[in-house]
């Protein structure tokens, strides 16, 4: 484990190392260790609704930290922490969590077996195009495993977190997403839809068993 000083000087070459230090020990500026809420493997906390960070793209994570810091994304816990991080520290901590392996494995989705009466699974995989609503999977990928840098994974996120974010997109307490897509999508969801689809993704996949020692380095 590198000391904070050497990690700082090595940050330009190895932002992951600085990010790991912040994630596991916090900073002298009052930022708590990220892992105390988000889990030692960045897997999140389903009971508390704290999101998974492991395996999300650097661009997405930095974007969220910047939005917390500017107040565009509102959250009483995260806003002060994000403000207390320098831009370089935000990039470093994003880089650290980004390279951690995804905490869940999602088996292939057989959408032939999904019935229209299964509201969450149907919305997730087929959408509701009569209302102009695309399926979640059309942007977030099969099983909600995420696509590229801009579309984060939904599988492996706590049900309460997904529901909370859909409400935030509706209310405008987080930015509407690229092209305003998530504001549009969330605006077409009822309370029952939000419950159904967040429950679907919250329950998708199974935990990857080897979570030990995943924060043991910048590999």
């Amino acid at each position: 484990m590198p000391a904070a000083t050497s990690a700082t000087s090595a940050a330009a070459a190895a932002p992951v190392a600085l990010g790991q230090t912040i994630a596991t020990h916090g900073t002298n500026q009052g930022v708590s260790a990220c892992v105390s809420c988000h889990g030692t493997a960045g897997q999140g906390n389903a009971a508390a609704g704290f999101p998974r960070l492991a395996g999300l793209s650097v661009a997405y994570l930095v974007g969220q930290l910047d939005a917390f810091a500017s107040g565009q994304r509102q959250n009483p816990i995260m806003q002060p922490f994000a403000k207390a991080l320098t831009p370089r520290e935000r990039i470093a901590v994003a880089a650290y969590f980004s390279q951690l392996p995804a905490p869940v494995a999602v088996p292939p989705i057989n959408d032939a077996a999904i019935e229209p009466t299964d509201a969450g699974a149907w919305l997730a995989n087929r959408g509701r195009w009569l209302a102009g609503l695309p399926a979640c999977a059309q942007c977030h990928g099969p099983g909600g495993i995420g696509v590229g840098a801009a579309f984060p994974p939904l599988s492996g996120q706590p049900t309460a977190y997904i529901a909370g974010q859909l409400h935030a997109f509706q209310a405008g307490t987080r930015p509407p997403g690229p092209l305003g897509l998530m504001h549009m999508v969330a605006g077409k969801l009822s309370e029952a839809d939000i419950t159904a689809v967040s429950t679907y993704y919250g329950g998708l996949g199974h935990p990857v068993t080897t979570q030990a020692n995943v924060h043991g380095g910048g590999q």
Partner: protein
Amino acid sequence: MKRTHSLLSASLLGLLLAIGGLSGANAAGPAPVQFTPPPESAMPKGEFGKSVKLGEQIFLHTGTLAGQFVGNSLNCASCHLDAGRRPNSSPLWAAYISYPAYRSKNGHVNTFAERMQGCFRFSMNGKAPPLGDPVLVALESYAYWLSTGAPVGGPVAGRGYPKLSAPALTPSYARGSEVFAQHCALCHGPDGQGQSSGGKVVFPPLWGARSFNWGAGMHSIQNAANFIKANMPLGLGGSLTDQQAWDVATFMDSHERPQDPRFTGSVEATRLKYHDSKYSMYGRTVNGHVLGSE
């Protein structure tokens, strides 16, 4: 009035339109009938139902379930949104009731099955399934079921893509590239090659070796502009201006893609024979490259 129409059954609407015709309000012919396909929950069971379901699944996962006939990374549903159900996105139910029909593209009367063979040969850059092949039978079963209650041979609202009128400004590759960067690259990538996840193509490639070929309808700038205006970006259809749709369609269709399978051996001759249109960039030179020459 239009909103009311959509709530009426097709037969009642037909009666109203007939009355309208008698009063001389529709001298040009019957107005298009509004149609909504049956809900997925009404999909039939039994042996026929299995074929309908298989057709729906082939439509959604074409490369996986009909890979022997597919030569690129597209699915039917890439351009026919909502599994072929969505109006103004070339819905299957509007196509099904419109065949057999004469097509100038091949100079004879085509059955619906032959029309779908064309999709595989051009849009899917693959091989036409033989008539009677289970893939075609399943797709036709699905299209037939979606068309339940639709007026065979009559005009139906939502067929194809709504045709854009000519653009105010001559479409521009340069403006199109800016539209692409702002509205399309998020999903299709800055290089237009789409994005995959978990081994599945999520956003289709718009040009290049894994996209539709030079014989596909989407290579026509008019068709592409129509589709883009009505349906892109996904979930935000109608948000681009007509000019933006023309410009970005021009940009998309000014890139190299797989050869037209009807290639005669000469780009110039192939252009004259099949692409003699201001809406086709085939054979034109863009950025120093003759499109169709590789």
